[in-house]
């Protein structure tokens, strides 16, 4: 990777909760068309970093750049309007609504003209059609777009959530432990889906505890410790155990070694 402008870039993010420093000058960058995984022990600051990137919280210090331009997200809505969609681990879907309604949740399509403007009439056919085409493109096999999300398996539900993010994200998608609540087979389906989302040209940030998955999916792996980015590695440059060693607090020399080893890849 050369002088390409990152899609999303963070410099020196700081977030304090009283005496606790959750982020202590964290850096981050995401380049076009890549999957970046963020790993780190509990309390390393992964979630705080993700929340700062998705507008769920505001950092006390540091700056965010989107396509090179300075931005500030005061709410998740700001980030969403900027083209950043987030998938949450706890399945942020409305179980009693059907798949099409969930994909269009909060962004319902109305009829054009007086029916839509005056009577606020929803264009259900258009939403169903678009949702069905979209799921087909992502190869999510679901019998009918009209079934309620609650009748789907956990994997299919998360599939709907990922598909929703992929549909609306113009710049990038953030996936916060998207497979944490899923079984083995379902996890596989969601991972394949994330790869397909990237193939369609959408860069992805993913948080996961699962090292094999991280090493399978990610182009680059960002390792957090004590509120800082301590290393950026790739599946080619490091083994899983090396990554875990860095994550859990390897010696300083090992760290430096890891950093220098990382340089050529950058």
């Amino acid at each position, binding site marked *: 990777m050369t002088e390409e402008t990152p899609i999303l870039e963070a410099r020196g993010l700081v977030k304090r909760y009283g005496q606790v420093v959750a982020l202590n000058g964290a850096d981050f960058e995401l380049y076009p068309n890549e999957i970046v995984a963020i790993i780190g022990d509990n309390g390393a600051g992964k979630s705080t970093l993700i929340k700062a990137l998705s507008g769920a919280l505001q950092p006390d210090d540091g700056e965010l750049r989107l396509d090179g331009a300075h931005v500030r997200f005061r709410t*998740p809505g700001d980030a969403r309007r900027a083209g950043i969609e987030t998938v949450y681990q*706890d399945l*942020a*879907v*409305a*179980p*009693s609504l059907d798949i099409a309604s969930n994909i269009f*949740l909060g962004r319902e399509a109305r009829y054009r003209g007086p029916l839509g403007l005056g009577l*606020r009439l*929803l264009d259900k056919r258009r939403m169903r059609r678009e949702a069905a085409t979209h799921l087909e493109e992502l190869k999510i096999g679901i019998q009918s777009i009209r079934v309620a999300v609650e009748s789907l398996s956990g994997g299919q539900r998360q599939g709907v959530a990922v598909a929703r993010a992929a549909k609306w994200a113009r710049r990038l998608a953030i996936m916060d432990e998207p497979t944490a609540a899923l079984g083995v087979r379902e996890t596989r389906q969601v991972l394949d889906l994330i790869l397909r989302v990237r193939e369609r040209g959408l860069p992805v940030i993913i948080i996961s505890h699962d090292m094999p998955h991280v090493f399978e999916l990610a182009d680059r792996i960002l390792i957090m410790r004590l509120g800082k980015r301590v290393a950026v590695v790739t599946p080619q440059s490091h083994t899983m155990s090396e990554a875990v060693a860095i994550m859990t607090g390897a010696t300083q020399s090992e760290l430096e070694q890891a950093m220098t080893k990382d340089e050529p890849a950058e």
Partner: protein
Amino acid sequence: MTLAHPAFQLTRRVLGAPTVGPLIALILAMAFFAVKSESFLQGQNLSLVLQQVMVVGVLAIGETFVILTAGIDLSCATVMAFGQIVMTKLAVAKGVDPLVAISLGILACVGFGLLNGGLVAAVKLPAFIVTLGTLNIAFAFTHIYSNDETYSELPSQLLFFGRTFTIHGTSITYGVVLMFILFGIAWYALTQTAWGRHVYTVGDNIEAARLMGIKVNRVLLSVYTLAGLTYGIAALLLVGRTELGDPNAGQTTENLDAITAVVLGGTSLFGGRGTVIGTLIGAVVVGVFRNGLTLIGVEVVWQYFVTGVLVILAVSVDQLTHRGRA
């Protein structure tokens, strides 16, 4: 028989389908009373059932909105009683133009809706406690404002919705027509607009609603305020039917009947599931039981008994199907 047994699954699916359960209950109840009493199925009696249902039916529309958001509104009938006193006292004792009096009465109910909604949405108090409070406040206002007087000899504008017209020898109350129109509007708003989707989502998964950028507080405020509006219209229907402004109105059966109608209609007390058409059926079921039991000469206290049993049955079905989904 285990919970996975096909027969049980089928029963649960049928009972879980939005309006099938309530419809079966309605048909069974009507069949029972048709056998027990010759006059039950006569057009004039069925028309009477609807006339008796119209007030509770309209109250239940607002209650459906609220329960869909996983809330509850205990104040519905007392707020209606207050609206009824405002419009009748203004028109009779204060000489206010009847249409203005009606508007102000409805506005008083909308005000209570706003208060409920504001406390639930902004102060984040549980709906049960908020509306228990406003129930008592509306009760107090009703008696203070009316000085416990009853207002009669109302101007004709206030009585319009109690009037009837005749089709093929069956008289139909204008208020019943209005009730059906309101159910139609409510159905449209809940099923054909984005607002309706958001109401369901807030009751279904409030966190998901927030994360998807739905303005949850605005939805809650609009729901309670619209509910207040329906209570105001119910007040007008009540005045039309009783031809009185009565400070003791709406304090016995209407509160529970409205909630019973919603629950019998298949709307889940857990929020996010239900239909306003189910509520209409539920309201008619309540009306059929009250009317039918009177026709076959059962004492009034047993009507309370039956309503109580019905509501517990309906909630049990709700609980059972909800557990199945979770």
